[in-house]
């Protein structure tokens, strides 16, 4: 093919033209927009990160995560005075914070004991030893307060007994710590006080639980008999009240078994009120025909 022919053929391509409607549409659309409003500043990436490749973008967070997890795990083996020890205490505090109301005293006591064990392994860190011992003493004080916060008496009793059992080696642990005489004396005093408080809680709670049965037990037995002996058809009560009273009775029974005397009394009282209302109704009904 001659160059001339080729150029001729190329010039034939001039016949290619855009759709006139489209061309008109495009022009009017562009002109409708204000150029200044459309001008977009280029997105600027921070030059510091510009060298980070796609793979590095994945690798760097992964490495950071790995580093964090490793530091976190390693921190659990550290002792006071180590740079990572605050991470360990932070984890322990989180454990306490996340524990339920019923387990919080036990968790706090175990953390305190773990800190005492850590202290027993170090020497020449008077400042850290003194600070952590202070915290342990505060924790022991809080343990007893937390037991008091447990609502159910039976649970509180069980926790108190568990705490008492777990606290047996507290003095032994304290003896291993390099405390000065004054601090040791103070710690021993607090520890004794704490042991007495726990024992007092056990005694108090046991007494509270034991006081319940004489009053409540009789009531529960009476109601139990009433519900069993009274035949279904002989009730003058509405169906809703029958269900309500039976549920209250069951709840009272459960509360009693759990050692929650106050709730049990409250429920029994509600059943009592229902019974008195219906006894009155019966009387009114019997009296009315005579009139």
């Amino acid at each position: 093919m001659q160059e001339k022919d080729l150029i001729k053929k190329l010039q034939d391509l001039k016949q290619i033209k855009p759709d006139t409607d489209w061309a008109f549409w495009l022009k009017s659309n562009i002109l409708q927009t204000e150029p200044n409003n459309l001008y977009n500043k280029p997105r600027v990436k921070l030059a510091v990160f510009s060298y980070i490749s796609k793979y590095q973008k994945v690798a760097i967070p992964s490495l950071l995560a790995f580093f964090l997890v490793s530091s976190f795990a390693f921190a659990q083996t550290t002792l006071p005075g180590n740079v990572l020890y605050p991470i360990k205490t932070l984890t322990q505090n989180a454990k306490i914070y996340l524990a339920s109301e019923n387990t919080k005293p036990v968790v706090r006591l175990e953390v305190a004991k773990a800190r005492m064990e850590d202290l027993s392994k170090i020497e020449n860190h008077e400042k850290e030893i003194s600070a952590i011992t202070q915290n342990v003493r505060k924790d022991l004080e809080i343990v007893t307060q937390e037991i008091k916060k447990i609502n159910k008496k039976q649970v509180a009793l069980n926790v108190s007994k568990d705490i008492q059992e777990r606290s047996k080696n507290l003095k032994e642990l304290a003896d291993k710590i390099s405390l000065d005489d004054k601090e040791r004396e103070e710690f021993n005093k607090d520890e004794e006080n704490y042991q007495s408080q726990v024992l007092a809680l056990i005694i108090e709670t046991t007494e509270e639980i034991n006081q319940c049965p004489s009053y409540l037990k009789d009531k529960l037995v009476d109601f139990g008999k009433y519900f069993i002996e009274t035949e279904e058809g002989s009730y003058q009560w509405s169906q809703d009240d029958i269900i309500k009273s039976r549920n209250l009775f069951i709840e009272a029974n459960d509360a009693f078994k759990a050692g929650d005397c106050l709730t049990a009394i409250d429920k029994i009282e509600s059943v009592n009120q229902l019974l008195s209302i219906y006894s009155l109704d019966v009387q009114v009904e019997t009296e009315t025909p005579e009139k």
Partner: protein
Amino acid sequence: MDKQEFSEFYDKNIDKVFRFVYLRVDTTETAQDLTSLAFLKLWRRQDSEISNPTAFLYRIARNQIIDFYRQKSKKPISLDKVGEIADFQVAQPTFSQKIELTLEMERIKKVLYNIKPVYADVIIWHYVDEMPIKDIAQVLEKREGNVRVIIHRALQALKEQLEV
């Protein structure tokens, strides 16, 4: 460039730019999109001094084509995406006019695909649109002498391909 000037410039160049893009891409719709983007970018750049708007427009269109193929090689590019990138109204009405090409024109279009992109560019600009070498040099940011060499080689490459 005010609206009036742009309007005149647009009317003068729309056919050429569309044709250039159309000969370098596969579909009419893609050619329409890339041409839209080229004119839109020119309109947006009114605030800056442009000594040769035609050369500038071709450079934008050429870059659009390069970007289009770069995106296409990574993943199929959605034309909606092109619109999104441009932050431009993409709900285009359908302009279904089919461009009628003779068999010979079809053949040349296909061959233009098979030669080096820069050869295809200069052939379209120089022989189809009759753009002066000076302007082509501006678009390619090369010396005029270099452009002449490229045009010569481009024509040879096209001839070879057509003779295959």
